[in-house]
């Protein structure tokens, strides 16, 4: 089959800039073949190469005594004691989900699960952070239905409990929804599998589902802005099959137990190309592939198509040849393909053969290591600390609360998470809905807590403080269930980095995230960058989602009680009444002005440590974040079916979003003891009201709990059913 001529328009269609093409000519000293052009395009697109972000990602803290493996592998690995490790990562599937919501979201979940079990870990928890456009936008409803069903359809069938996540709505996502999928798995810390190949002449084995034409060019699509040709991009979205993924997971874990695996890599973005090059590059070896051996789903596939296909549920492995029979038997048991498609070679060469014809012959290390890296110009929003905030009128607090909980942003999300299996594996201790989700480490008394957080409004107003705040909120959510935060993963969603103000959002957010991860000892162990989230030149809110994992060393340390009639409400931390960029302004006054709240990382640490060291006195705790005290107190009260009375009637006191704060509910004696302990520790604490009765009272204003509860629980169904 003859391959197309290399022309300027073909180069442009591969997302390669003229200077990047010049670089290719320089590297190989000749014109590339069509297949080679595809390979370069796959390796050098933003999605795979991180060419705009690499410089800044390097500044993040990624190490610590708890970190077994930081960024660079399929997922991060963190020690949880007793020879066990938690393996986790968060990754976006934004562009595909907007084009084809069900399959885009489903394969996002599939991809992240594969990243986790490729490392030798059995997935035990998933989360999803979803951002959609405004409710009234014509695409929103269809995207919400499709994405939620896709997430559930894949995760539920695979059999991993979904224990957390976020759902937000904002006009800035009208043209680009965000689907950030998180997965965590459990492994023995001395049985982690990596991608670096070793040994010359070792068989390269293809595992899993067959290769089709789906997703050809997907990674390049995901590195471009959208315009009115979006419908034409549908064929670049892959189709997921959770049943095959479940079998691939079981077979892979069984295979690993046989000792036959030298190295292994899942086929994600840019499929066979990225996985083969990565295994060779990390091991300092070359790779030869014979494409006729690749299991194919469709007839007459070309080398180009096979190298760029993003068919799902596939893996590439370097095998110990003496154990081939055992390895093959495992895959036959699970009715999956097992094919030797090449071998490792000593030369630095990526040699792709198809029916004895050379389709690509490239220097492997250079292909992998010489991806362009840009130091893009950026403008960091002036950090004056005094962004203008117009005066705010006092408002009846009950009216304000009612408006908040009637907005899908702050209403109960049961409509969403009840479509996810939250309890499969029978180790779920705390389901999504209020703060962090909690899973028991199977067969032990240890618990793991999971949360994902970011407040995009803050990041837009003040990228550095907003970046810090995302980490701080994750820290607080883990703390509020009694967990010690271990580490985090970052999923950085931004607009077009070629615009200096967008690049400035990125640079600022990274700086804030880095400072917070350092101060709160939550190193970043994995992550993903999604840029070009723009449509017709309009970008999303900067959305650096932080996924974080915490450990509760024994089940007694879990804080997960419900409030009871007679409980005292205490706020730990300082309330100044910061209303800039608050939920109240956005939802009630339709305003997004002022600065983001300041994050005092020392106070965050001090207050978090105080909670952890006084768990015996604290049975009910939640973090205060957007919506402030009023929303948090309502959520605790509503969950327990008990009313609440807050003493203040002041808008800023009730709805202010000052950081480093927690709401604690406890009986009078415990409250006294906590106040004394906090006094000794120099931690601000104050009594703000009490729980009890059947109504919600703030200042002189009051409404029946049942009425507010109906609004809170009915909003999603009323909006989306």
């Amino acid at each position: 089959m003859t391959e197309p001529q290399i022309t300027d328009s073909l180069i442009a269609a591969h997302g390669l800039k003229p200077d990047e093409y010049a670089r290719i000519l320089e590297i190989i000293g000749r014109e590339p073949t069509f297949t080679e052009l595809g390979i370069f395009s796959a390796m050098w697109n933003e999605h795979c190469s991180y060419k705009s972000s690499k410089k800044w990602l390097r500044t993040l803290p990624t190490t610590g005594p708890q970190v077994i493996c930081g960024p660079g592998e399929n997922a991060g690995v963190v020690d949880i004691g007793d020879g066990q490790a938690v393996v986790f990562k968060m990754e976006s599937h934004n562009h595909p989900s907007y084009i084809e919501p069900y399959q885009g979201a489903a394969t996002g979940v599939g991809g992240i699960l594969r990243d986790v079990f490729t490392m030798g870990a059995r997935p035990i928890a998933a989360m999803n952070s979803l951002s959609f456009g405004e409710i009234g936008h014509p695409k929103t409803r269809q995207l919400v239905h499709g994405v939620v069903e896709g997430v559930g359809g894949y995760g539920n069938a695979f059999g991993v409990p979904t224990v957390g996540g976020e759902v937000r709505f904002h006009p800035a996502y009208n043209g680009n929804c965000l689907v950030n999928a998180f997965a965590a798995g459990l492994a023995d810390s001395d049985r982690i599998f990596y991608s670096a190949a070793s040994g010359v002449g070792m068989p390269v084995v293809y595992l899993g589902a067959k290769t089709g034409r789906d997703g050809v060019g997907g990674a390049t699509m995901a590195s471009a802005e959208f315009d009115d040709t979006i419908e034409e991009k549908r064929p670049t979205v892959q189709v997921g099959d959770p049943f095959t993924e479940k079998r691939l997971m079981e077979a892979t874990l069984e295979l690993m137990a046989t000792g036959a695996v030298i190295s292994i890599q899942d086929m994600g973005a840019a499929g066979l190309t990225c996985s083969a090059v990565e295994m060779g590059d990390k091991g300092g070896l070359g790779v030869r592939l014979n494409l006729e051996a690749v299991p194919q789903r469709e007839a007459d596939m070309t080398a180009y198509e096979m190298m760029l296909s993003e068919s799902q549920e596939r893996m590439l492995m370097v095998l110990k040849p003496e154990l081939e029979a055992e390895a093959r038997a495992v895959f036959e048991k699970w009715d999956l393909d097992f094919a030797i498609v090449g071998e490792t070679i000593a030369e630095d060469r990526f040699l792709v053969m198809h029916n004895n014809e050379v389709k690509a012959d490239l220097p492997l290390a250079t292909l992998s290591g010489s991806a362009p890296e840009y130091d893009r110009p950026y403008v960091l929003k002036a950090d004056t600390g005094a962004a203008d905030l117009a005066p705010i009128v006092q408002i009846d607090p009950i009216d304000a609360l009612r408006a908040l909980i009637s907005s899908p942003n702050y209403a109960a999300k049961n409509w969403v998470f009840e479509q996810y299996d939250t309890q499969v594996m029978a180790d779920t201790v705390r389901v999504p809905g209020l703060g962090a989700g909690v899973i028991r480490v199977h067969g032990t008394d240890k618990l793991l807590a999971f949360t994902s957080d970011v407040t995009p409004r803050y990041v837009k107003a003040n990228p550095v403080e907003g970046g810090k705040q995302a980490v701080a909120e994750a820290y607080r959510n883990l703390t509020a269930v009694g967990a010690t935060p271990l580490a985090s993963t970052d999923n950085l969603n931004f607009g077009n980095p070629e615009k200096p103000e967008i690049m400035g959002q990125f640079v600022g957010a990274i700086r804030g995230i880095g400072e917070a991860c350092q101060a709160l000892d939550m190193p970043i162990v994995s992550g993903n960058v999604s840029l070009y989230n723009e449509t017709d030149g309009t970008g999303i809110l900067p959305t650096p989602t932080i996924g974080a994992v915490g450990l509760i060393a024994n089940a007694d340390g879990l804080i997960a009680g419900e409030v009871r009639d007679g409980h005292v409400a205490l706020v730990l931390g300082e309330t100044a009444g910061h209303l800039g960029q608050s939920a109240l302004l956005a939802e009630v006054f339709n305003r997004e002005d002022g600065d983001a709240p300041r994050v005092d990382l020392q106070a965050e640490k001090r207050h978090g440590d105080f909670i952890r060291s006084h768990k015996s006195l604290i049975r009910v705790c939640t973090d205060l974040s957007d919506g402030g005290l009023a929303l948090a107190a309502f959520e605790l009260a509503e969950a327990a079916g008990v009313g609440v009375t807050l003493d203040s009637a002041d808008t800023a006191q009730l709805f202010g979003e000052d950081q480093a704060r927690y709401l604690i509910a406890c009986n009078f004696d415990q409250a006294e003891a906590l106040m004394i302990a906090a006094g000794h520790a120099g931690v601000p604490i104050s009594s703000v009201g009490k729980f009890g009765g059947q109504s919600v009272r703030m200042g002189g204003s009051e409404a029946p709990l049942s009425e507010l509860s109906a609004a809170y629980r009915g909003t999603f169904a009323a909006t989306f059913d």
Partner: protein
Amino acid sequence: MKAAILVFPGSNCDRDLAQAFRAAGAEVQMVWHKDTELPAGTDIVGVPGGFSYGDYLRCGAIAAQSPICKALRTHVERGGYALGVCNGFQVLTETGLLPGALLRNAGLKYICKPVRLGVATADCAFTCAYEQGQQVTYPIAHHDGNYFADPDQLAALWAEDRVAFRYVDNPNGSAADIAGILSANRRVLGMMPHPERAAEPAQGGTDGAAFFRGLLAGVAQSAAPA
């Protein structure tokens, strides 16, 4: 007491079910779907939740044709006990060991949440730990749990006291609020809710623990010489 848990390639509650049986004191063996026989001396077969063969045709339809389901049928025909939970219930209706079918939920959405159930009969090994009319809470997690049977079948189920569990607040449109039914010999139970997910305090409920303890005792009693 020997329990055999069937494992289809897409089962995902097999470990959970095994754990609940073990916690209640059973000796548990996992049995692969390609096997043609159950382990010797199997007292009860557990058909777990999940997506057996991907559930692409109709939930449980392909599983019903698997080699191990032939062995299951033989076991049941000999008077052996079987418990099918969620996808297991779907498999049992597809094999014809239980009447009726499970349709897509009336709301067309997957639903995962704890539900209140009424124990409609305590006259079988499965529910002997409960009183008739007692309420228990188990989680549900399914897309296709809307029980359907034709009027004659429903009448027979009621007449023969074969409805084991009913939903207090029907979540999925099931006929007559039916959550679980028994075979004519009362030795096969199919149910959509998951007792194995409510079997210990850490899971947020323990109503299911009594189910498994009662079941093992009930099976043991029926096997004991009169």
